[in-house]
């Protein structure tokens, strides 16, 4: 079977600096696939390349067998890819639930005419979208914030809100960029639980994360980056025993 996300010989140079160099790997559908590595290893750059925010200098990315070279981020979203950000991207000019309902954008096709006259079909769809968004907020654990302005929410709640927004798009694959950053131990445990729940639904999860306990416990496979290159790839057990990884990253 073909992999859901396949990366071949990926290269991204900023000026003379290769942020990502010759990276290849494949993520099977249904896996939790983590990317780890020291700061500046190119993890976020890799995510930005996969989600179409950066254009690769060289190499190829395939989503479900289709090359993503000419696709904009919104077109990748149409094909079932969604993500969260290390530097959270929340619309602070909206309420919490509106942010999640924004995630339903692709499911809510409405014409300008229906919109301007607020016809019953639009009202019905909006009510359904709102219900679904409220469920998702409950699911990720920020259900108490429904109509709170996003700008008034705490950091931890916004992180969960971002995940709810990504899930609202009914993604096939969700990319989480450092979801545990800035969270305390209790919140991290809740996050681990949440990622498991998402994976159990059959959604493929790609994860960039520094919290090794979280990553090792949850991942099916890992990719270790160092200075933009692949240092190792394999199951958590293989990675733990890889001498290169121990030397370069785990501080052996």
């Amino acid at each position, binding site marked *: 079977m073909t992999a859901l996300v396949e990366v071949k010989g990926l290269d991204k140079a900023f000026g003379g600096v290769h942020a990502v160099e010759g990276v290849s790997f494949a993520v099977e559908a249904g896996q939790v696939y983590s990317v780890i590595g020291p700061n500046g290893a190119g993890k976020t750059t890799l995510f930005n390349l996969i*989600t179409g*925010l950066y254009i690769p200098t060289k190499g190829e990315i395939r989503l479900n067998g289709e090359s993503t070279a000419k696709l*904009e*981020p*919104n077109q*990748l*979203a*149409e094909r079932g890819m*969604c*993500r969260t*950000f290390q530097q959270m*991207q*929340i*619309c*602070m*000019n*909206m309420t919490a639930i*509106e942010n999640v*309902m*924004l*995630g*339903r*954008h*692709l499911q*809510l*096709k*409405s014409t*300008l005419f229906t*919109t*301007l*006259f*607020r016809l019953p079909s*639009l009202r019905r*769809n*909006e*009510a359904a*979208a*709102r219900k679904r968004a409220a469920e998702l907020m409950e699911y990720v654990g920020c259900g108490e914030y*429904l*109509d709170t302005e996003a700008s008034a929410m705490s950091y931890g709640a916004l992180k969960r809100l971002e995940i709810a*927004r*990504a899930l*609202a*798009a009914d993604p096939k694959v969700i990319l989480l960029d450092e979801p545990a950053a800035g969270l305390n131990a209790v919140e991290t445990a809740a996050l681990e639980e949440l990622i498991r729940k998402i994976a159990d639904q059959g959604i493929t999860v790609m994860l960039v994360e520094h919290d090794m306990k979280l990553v090792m416990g949850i991942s099916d496979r890992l990719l270790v980056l160092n200075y933009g290159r692949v240092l190792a790839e394999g199951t958590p057990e293989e990675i733990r025993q890889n001498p290169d990884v121990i030397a370069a990253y785990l501080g052996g």
Partner: protein
Amino acid sequence: MLNRFMQSRLRGMVILALILIILPVFLSNPFHYELVIQMAIIAATVVGLNLLVGFAGQISLGHAGFFGLGAYFTGIATGTYGWSSVPALVVGAITVGIIAWVVGRPILRLKGHYLSMATLAVGFIIAIILNNERAITGGPDGMPVPALDLFGWELSTFGSYSLFGLEISGVQAWYILASVVLLLAVWFAQNLIESPIGRALRSVKGSEVAASVVGVDTAKYKSLVFVISAIYASVMGGLYAHFQGFITPAVASFEFSILFITMVVLGGMGSTFGVILGAVVLKLLPQVLADFQELETVMFGLILMLTMIFMPKGLLPTLVAVVSRRFGKKAGGEA
């Protein structure tokens, strides 16, 4: 919860409608009516501009250009070619919408100051064309525009009409029309904002990156809102031309564009009723300060600066916040 939401949507409309119904009690002469009708037409234009500036976070310093195009299209179609008003307004709106789309597609790739400069240039180019094409537009001397006719029913400011047996003057009839148009403009804007399209527009302001990764085609929505706000301006420009009975290229001028933007910023970016208040205040101000007429542009500049520094949310949202704080305190004291 949704119920409360619906009620709050309608509440603003109801208050506006009540004000528009009660207002004539205080209007004692045709000049007052004239002022209020102009206010309503400009307020409706600014409600459209606010969709672009306040909700989608894009700037246009050339919006009077579209207002002017709408005014001249109507003036030329009805005056020179003898069209009836309604088709003139509709075809004018479609034409201006297409122009806005063609112009907007490339320039909306720009951000911040660059977008300001590009829209400024669009406004200037339109004003220059209106000034120079004497054969068609009458040039700087302007051109007369026939009275509005609604399906063969002529609405002149000098006429007199009867409404349900009530004798009303031409300006009073115009007042009713302008009120209905303003309410419709607000209703459409409200419906647009609280919809999937509206959320996509607001997300462009909130975070373009977030919008794009959940599937919003940000370029498309920027163009769409640019076109919609241009259509608002075009229709209102057409009505303005009919109401004034005479137009000059000043309707497309830079000063007019700045006035529109100042109304949005002063009233409250992203607040539909706020920008109406902004339009009212800035339309009244020159009446109050008639002695300082030559300083008008300076005044607008000053208001724009002071608002951005001291009331970045704008007049109405700030007032609402102050009142609700007062109110909250009082309620707490009584408890």
